[in-house]
């Protein structure tokens, strides 16, 4: 099984994370989900990869991009993988 290029750091039932998932599905992109804890102090892995403890955060190994904030991520995904994207 080949590993998906996109890793999504998410929190269970977080609406901003679900928004990113919706976009990933719309664009038919493969991704893997890594779930973290609700407590900010327990999200060191997210801080390490993205520089902040906020979720959602994505790591796209295809492009080398790491990004936080759902609005930014959705814009990035649509711009990179959507119709008319690069």
């Amino acid at each position: 099984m080949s590993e998906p290029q996109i890793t999504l750091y998410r929190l269970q039932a977080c609406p901003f994370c679900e928004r990113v998932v919706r976009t990933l599905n719309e664009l038919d992109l493969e991704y893997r989900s890594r779930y973290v804890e609700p407590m900010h102090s327990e999200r060191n892995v997210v801080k390490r990869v993205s520089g902040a403890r906020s979720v959602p955060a994505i790591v796209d190994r295809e492009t080398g991009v790491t990004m936080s904030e759902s609005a930014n991520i959705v814009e990035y995904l649509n711009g990179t993988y959507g119709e008319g994207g690069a």
Partner: protein
Amino acid sequence: MVDFDVVSLPETDHVAEGDTAPDFTRPLVNDEYWEDRALADAVDGPTLLLFHPMDGAFQGTYLYNTVDDHGWAADVDVLGVSISTPYAHKRLLADRGDGVRVFSDPGAGVIEEYGLAHDIDGMTGVTESRPAVFLLDADRTVEYAWVADEHPAFPDAEAIDDAVADLVD
């Protein structure tokens, strides 16, 4: 020894030495996050696969203290399985089980496939795992197996030490 009879568990057709450990995918929890993971992808060398009762029961606490005391995680990959949630596994791993990752199997589907299901008296609707130990080589062949046939029962740490030494040397 205790001076009363421990409960004998019924015979079970469980995964045994020489078998290939059945593959499965479940959330695999480390001390930072969890993600769906197939056993076949998680096993890339000698691996100790430990099934145990739900997190919080003293058997699991005792098991991970034994893992730490014997330093098995330094010699082989150590993977646990229980019916507890990823959140419970995170709490468990915060206190013990250094370097261990634990699969979450709340519906006990993996536990049933391995022949380890144990219905606990007085906890209606809960299917538990018998304590069980499987030492796997890199292609998931079972080199050593132990499955509890009494309740309660604990794995023999010295036997596991010997099996790990045989496989790693």
